[in-house]
């Protein structure tokens, strides 16, 4: 890779060992993908919590902090594995939760803003068209590339921290025009409406095209999604398809027409998604004996609009005795939801609101599942029903209003 004078100085250790180590990691990744140079970034979003990092990750952070690591650009954190206000009641391992507090302290010492949200694109930072960023959480990346027209690859925890330390990232993948062109067209002949419908579309397209460099071009969308619709579509495509970008003709900034979205490429394939395909997604889930004592609205965290919608749907209702309903959101959203009364309405119905976390990454989740006798899990998030499966839940995607019915009745149909 071509290195600037500053990057060469970084590599010689003139800006400290953490920066040198960070650049070396980035160089290896850049080399793997054939990157020619680095691009500067001003905004970084990183994943880092004890559930995924373990003791070795915590020790890495301790050592890096001890060497006076200091992030040089704005860097925020993704959702984490514990809401401290609920950790004990949920049966989380308090030893691990103590480590989570230590970990947050290390990050803060390194100039990381521990915002703990996976919807940074709604709550924190909206990059401009063409802006290079280094974001982690795949849902944030696909939103940045597709909806803002910003440029990011998936940047996992150590890679994002490295970008925060060096202020740059290797130029490969979605930083380059050639990878941003659509690779196939998806004609949509369906009314998606609910967030679960957008997620179901993402599941159909993602599962059948699992490839980071696949870029679907959605055409024929009758009504453009809201920000939350984009959120669920993108998170689902990223989850099922490992995809980092999509276009929506006439809606997203790099897709005024199909031809422009394809960037001159003759599409290799056109697939059509019809209403029957969407409906079939919902029908195919195995509901077992039909009992369900766990309903989750999470993955990604709920926006203020989703909080309002849920408060309205739960108004005058009560969660079924013996069932649990969880909503996860960002700290900033919860503050507003409380100010506006949505949080109180949900809590009055028996819903538990967790802040700064995403449900599927909660520490001790397998043990919590067993202790609570949870098997069926119903959610309106196509992403969540895919990501949580290592914990051996039987997951079922349902539309938002249906999820509320399950929460109230304890029965899934």
């Amino acid at each position, binding site marked *: 890779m071509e290195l600037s004078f500053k990057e060469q100085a970084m590599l010689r250790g003139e800006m400290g060992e953490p920066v040198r180590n960070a650049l070396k990691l980035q160089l290896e990744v850049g*080399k793997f993908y054939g990157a020619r140079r680095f691009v500067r970034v001003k905004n970084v979003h990183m*994943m880092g919590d004890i559930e995924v990092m373990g003791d070795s990750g915590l020790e890495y952070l301790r050592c890096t902090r001890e060497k006076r690591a200091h992030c040089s650009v704005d860097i925020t954190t993704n959702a984490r594995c514990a809401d401290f206000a609920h950790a004990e009641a949920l049966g989380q391992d308090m030893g691990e939760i103590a480590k989570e507090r230590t970990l947050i302290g290390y990050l803060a010492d390194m100039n990381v803003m521990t915002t703990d949200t996976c919807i940074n694109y709604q709550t924190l930072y909206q990059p401009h068209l063409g802006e290079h960023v280094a974001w982690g959480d795949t849902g944030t990346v696909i939103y940045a590339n597709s909806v803002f027209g910003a440029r990011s690859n998936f940047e996992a925890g150590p890679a994002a921290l490295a970008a925060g330390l060096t202020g740059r990232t290797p130029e490969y993948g979605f930083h380059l025009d050639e990878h941003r062109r659509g690779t196939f067209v998806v004609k949509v002949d369906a009314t998606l409406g609910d967030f679960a419908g957008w997620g179901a579309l993402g599941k159909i397209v993602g599962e059948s095209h699992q490839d980071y460099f696949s870029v679907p071009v959605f055409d024929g969308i009758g009504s453009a999604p809201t920000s939350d619709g984009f959120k669920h579509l993108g998170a689902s495509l990223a989850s099922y398809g490992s995809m980092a970008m999509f276009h929506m003709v006439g809606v997203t900034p790099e897709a005024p027409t199909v031809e422009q979205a394809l960037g001159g490429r003759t599409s290799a394939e056109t697939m059509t998604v019809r209403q029957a395909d969407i409906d079939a997604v919902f029908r195919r889930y195995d509901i077992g004996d039909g009992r369900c004592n766990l309903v989750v609205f999470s993955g990604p965290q709920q926006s203020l609009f989703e909080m309002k919608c849920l408060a309205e749907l739960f108004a005058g209702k009560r969660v079924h005795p013996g069932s649990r309903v969880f909503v996860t959101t960002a700290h900033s959203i919860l503050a507003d939801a409380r100010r506006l009364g949505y949080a109180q309405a949900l809590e009055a119905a028996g819903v538990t609101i967790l802040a700064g976390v995403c449900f599927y990454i909660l520490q001790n989740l397998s043990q919590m599942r067993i202790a609570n006798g949870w098997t069926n899990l119903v959610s309106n998030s196509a992403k969540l029903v895919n990501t949580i499966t*290592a914990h051996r839940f039987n997951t079922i995607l349902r539309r938002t209003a249906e999820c509320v019915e399950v929460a109230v009745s304890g029965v899934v149909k």
Partner: protein
Amino acid sequence: MSKVLATISVERAFGPVVEGEAVLSSEGFSPRYDLDRWSGVITKRGHKLEGVQIRDTILFFPTAKGGVAAGWAFSDIRSKSIAPKAFVFGRTNPVMVQGAVFANITITEGWSQDPFEVVRTGDVVRIDPGRKVIEVLSRKAT
């Protein structure tokens, strides 16, 4: 050097030369979605490798699933001594690569022919990232 029974070329590679027992999957992989990161066993219900222990194996997956977890998780499972020796992907994503580089676990992407045609689970294979090759060294005893 052991006699090589078959060779597959790969497009991209990182890490040290490793030898180990191959485990082939026709389904993609994510350490978050599919793996119990405390035992090293694939636990997702219905995964093609459900119940398989990945420790010290050379894992072949056609694709990477989403999820940003691998960045830290590969280093974590390595420190717990339950990591595979290598990940061999048909198509992968940067999360897997960043995680493998951080953990110094061998990883490759792209293959000149479908591994299912030349490698079986249980065969001993060598991954040489420098030469960008996968070599079959011995067949599983039948």
